[in-house]
């Protein structure tokens, strides 16, 4: 597979379900009601649907990386969280290759990825380095 700087990655999408948030509450041992009680979210003025856990949003970024580079080894990911993902959102990871370098006969690939919702708002911005 030929890779080039500026090349777009294949987009990866997921529809966020309440049962996903319930699973993450269990995974993170997180009792915060904003993840399972929409009334609490309304009360604090953050919207009217439950808010997804931040680590789940980063997991989507990772899934998109493996979708595009199934055998890669991720070296680092720097994530800036800019907004919330809500139940019933459809999130899409998209982005491009920003650099390709070589070290010890391995290709190090840099990516700039964004996790967008259905309104095309960027909710997570991630700088990634991986070995292909």
């Amino acid at each position, binding site marked *: 597979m030929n890779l080039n700087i500026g090349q777009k990655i294949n987009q*990866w*999408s*997921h*529809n966020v379900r309440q*049962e*996903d948030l319930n*699973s*993450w509450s*269990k*995974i*993170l*041992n*997180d009792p915060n009601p904003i993840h399972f009680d929409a009334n609490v979210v309304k009360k*604090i003025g953050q919207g009217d649907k439950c808010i997804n856990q*931040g*680590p*789940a949003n*980063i*997991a*989507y970024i*990772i*899934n998109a990386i*493996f*979708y595009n580079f*199934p*055998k890669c*080894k*991720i*070296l*680092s*990911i*720097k*994530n*800036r*969280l800019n907004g919330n993902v809500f139940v019933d959102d459809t999130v899409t990871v998209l982005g491009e290759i920003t650099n390709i370098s070589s070290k010890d006969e391995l290709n190090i690939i840099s990516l700039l990825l964004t996790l967008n919702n259905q309104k095309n708002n960027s909710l997570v911005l991630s700088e990634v380095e991986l070995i292909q």
Partner: protein
Amino acid sequence: MLNKDLINHKFPGGSFIIDKEINDLIKSSTGIELNKNTLNEDLAHPIFSMVALNSIGYTLEELFNLLNYDVQKGPMLGECEFHLLDNYKLDRSYIVNGFIESFESKVSKKIGNFDIMNFKLEITFESRVISKINYKWILPV
């Protein structure tokens, strides 16, 4: 008033074991169909670098109490950077250690005055570093 004397405060630390059940739950709850060979089945999901946050020896609520910070003000995770030095594998016990590195005071048009708490975690297996994680938490004043 935020207790900024906690710079260099070490967390009690803790550990976590990655079993197939929890790894499958992460995959199925983030849109990966199980047994579809989209991730190497012998390896665990790299997101365990962030899941480790619940093994620092404090709950987040306890950490904010220690900081003398009212969680009703709405603390937010601003950034998370992690470096993976090796893969996570199933049925291994990983050790988590970390400390508060620094605080910064800032002002934004959107949320007004706020502090940033920087803290670092390190995840090891048999004394070998697997992952290093830097967190930036935004703490509105």
